[in-house]
């Protein structure tokens, strides 16, 4: 057991190092200069602009050679310092991200878990029920083939613009400030619903199709057939099939997390929802290196932690993994 987790942990550390390094590099490969972009907005005289740019470059450490910047990045990262945001200057990146985390997780976690649970239950239910299956399967295919952003726009248009039931931007009305009052929570939920729905629907399709196919596969398996031959009731056979079909779905969840987070960026942009995805877009537009790094770092850590949790869950639910750990070689 210990060996299994040590190995996993090592793999995660390597992944973390590689992912964060790439994330450091990507913004620096973008054309343009963040300081110039910032100063450009201030419309200074050319002479003064040069001076200011030089000053800011020094402050942000962007005048140093790339390798130096890279080393600086890791040293300050270990101190928990992600630098100062350029576009929201002088707010530190950690604070900017901390402010948007509740909105981000509050949207993503319910969307991922609800769609996964509902998709699995519904998919398992529809499998081998001919008429229901014939109706819902095409619908699921449409769901899963829908781009997140497109569905978000469609929902915003229909429910926000045409019907006017739901607001289409922000996490709460500009008129009120965040507090734990009922009116704020209601306001928050109203803003939360459409982004949640768009994420939920697209993911639901994929999970339900996956589960339906797995259940059919499991019901065809020899052990199901033998249970049937011994007159076991359908309920028991389906229960076994469901449990075994869940295992690949758990793996699927781990694999899909990155894709879902990426999808959430589009959704948050459409609804101007102040999560990490929306922040990331702003950061990219202003070439805010430090904020981009911070957002990526958050996403990388999130995906890795979620994967690790799934690894642990897998050990608990699949006896073959649990027992195979002693003599694992491959």
């Amino acid at each position, binding site marked *: 057991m210990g060996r299994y987790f040590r190995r996993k942990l090592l793999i995660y550390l390597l992944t973390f190092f590689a992912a964060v390094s790439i994330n450091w590099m990507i913004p620096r490969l973008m054309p343009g200069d963040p300081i110039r972009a910032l100063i450009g907005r201030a419309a200074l005289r050319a002479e003064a602009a040069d001076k200011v740019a030089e000053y800011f470059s020094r402050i942000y450490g962007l005048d140093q050679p790339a390798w130096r910047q890279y080393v600086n990045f890791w040293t300050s990262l270990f101190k928990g310092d992600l630098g100062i945001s350029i576009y929201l200057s002088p707010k530190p990146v950690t604070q900017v991200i901390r402010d948007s985390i509740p909105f981000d997780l509050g949207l993503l976690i319910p969307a991922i878990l609800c769609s996964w649970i509902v998709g699995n239950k519904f998919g398992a239910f529809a499998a081998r029920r001919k008429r229901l299956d014939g109706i819902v399967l095409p619908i699921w295919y449409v769901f899963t083939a829908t781009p997140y952003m497109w569905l978000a726009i469609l929902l915003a248009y229909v429910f926000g613009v045409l019907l006017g039931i739901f607001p289409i931007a922000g996490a709460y009305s500009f008129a009120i400030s965040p507090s734990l009052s009922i009116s704020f929570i209601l306001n928050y939920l109203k803003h939360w619903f459409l982004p949640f729905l768009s994420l939920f629907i697209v993911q639901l399709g994929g999970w339900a199709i996956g589960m339906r196919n797995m259940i059919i596969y499991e019901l065809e398996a020899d*052990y199901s*057939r033998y*249970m049937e031959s011994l*007159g076991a009731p359908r309920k*028991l056979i389906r229960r076994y099939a469901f449990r075994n079909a869940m295992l690949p779905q758990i793996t699927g969840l781990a694999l899909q997390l990155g894709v879902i987070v990426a999808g959430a960026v589009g959704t948050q942009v459409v609804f101007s929802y102040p999560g990490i995805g929306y922040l990331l877009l702003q950061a990219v537009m202003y070439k805010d290196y430090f904020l981009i790094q911070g957002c990526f770092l958050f996403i990388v850590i999130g995906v890795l932690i979620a994967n690790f949790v799934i690894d642990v869950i897998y050990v608990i639910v699949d006896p073959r993994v649990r*027992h195979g750990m002693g003599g694992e070689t491959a």
Partner: protein
Amino acid sequence: MAVSVKNLKIYYQTLRGQVQAVDNVSFDIKDHEILGMAGESGCGKSTFSNSLVLLKPPMKFMGGRVELDGESLPLADFRKMNEFRYKKISLIPQYAMNALNPTRKIGRMIAELLASRGVSFSKISRELDRRLKLVNLNRSVMKMYPFELSGGMRQRAVMVIATLLDPSLLLADEITSALDVSTQKAVAKMLVQFRDMDLVKSLVFVTHDISILYQIADRVLIMYAGKAVEIAPTKKITKEPLHPYTRLLISSLPDVGVKYSERRLAGIKGRPPGLLNPFPGCRFKERCPVRFEKCDKEPPLAEVSENHQVACWREVGNNG
């Protein structure tokens, strides 16, 4: 008479028509008897055993009746058959090594299965221990997952599970095919022991390996292309087989002490006919060395001497 099968017809429904996998097969199995059912691939022997426990599409019941202890089996009614499954008719399947849920401990699976059939696990627990001992399994396997057992152990576990409720009829479908020869004999002996101890009343042992039937079967039924072609006590059928197919089948077995590097092992020329719209008459006629005009009509399975039935015009014709 424990089991009587009369004119049983089981076809497979395909897009191109019906495949007549078991066609008009009739025979009896006595109490306390081990009936060996042999034939080459596709002769309908597995279809027969599957049709008694799990008759579902594309398999189709086309007629005939099967009586078990005087009761007629509702073969065509999947739900009604559930009362008979496991309690009266049980199966050791061809895929015995994969027949257990991989993510349940064997003991727990048995308990859940029994509970679903209205049998209390605690009541049967002691008997279960005794039977595990019979097949040389330790009680600890109940606390294990199937993947922790070897293939042979899994198969023996399935043998215990299949016979736990003392079925009247046990179908053993090709259970020795995947085993090496020494294990084959051990497994076959265990089955005989099950019968001797009255754990099962009658046993149908389906196999393509006639040599194993020598060792355990009381009578042998030879199937060819969906038809029963010969039934006789094991000794009789091996010493004096009457049907040309049986003769060729038995003569194609290797003899002890003969070096087959010098003499090629004889086989039967040709292939069995396709069972989708088969030709009329005897289904063996195209490969038969002693064919004559009468073979274009279908030969009945007729008793030629005591306890010896053959479906061949040569034999039936001799008697009238």
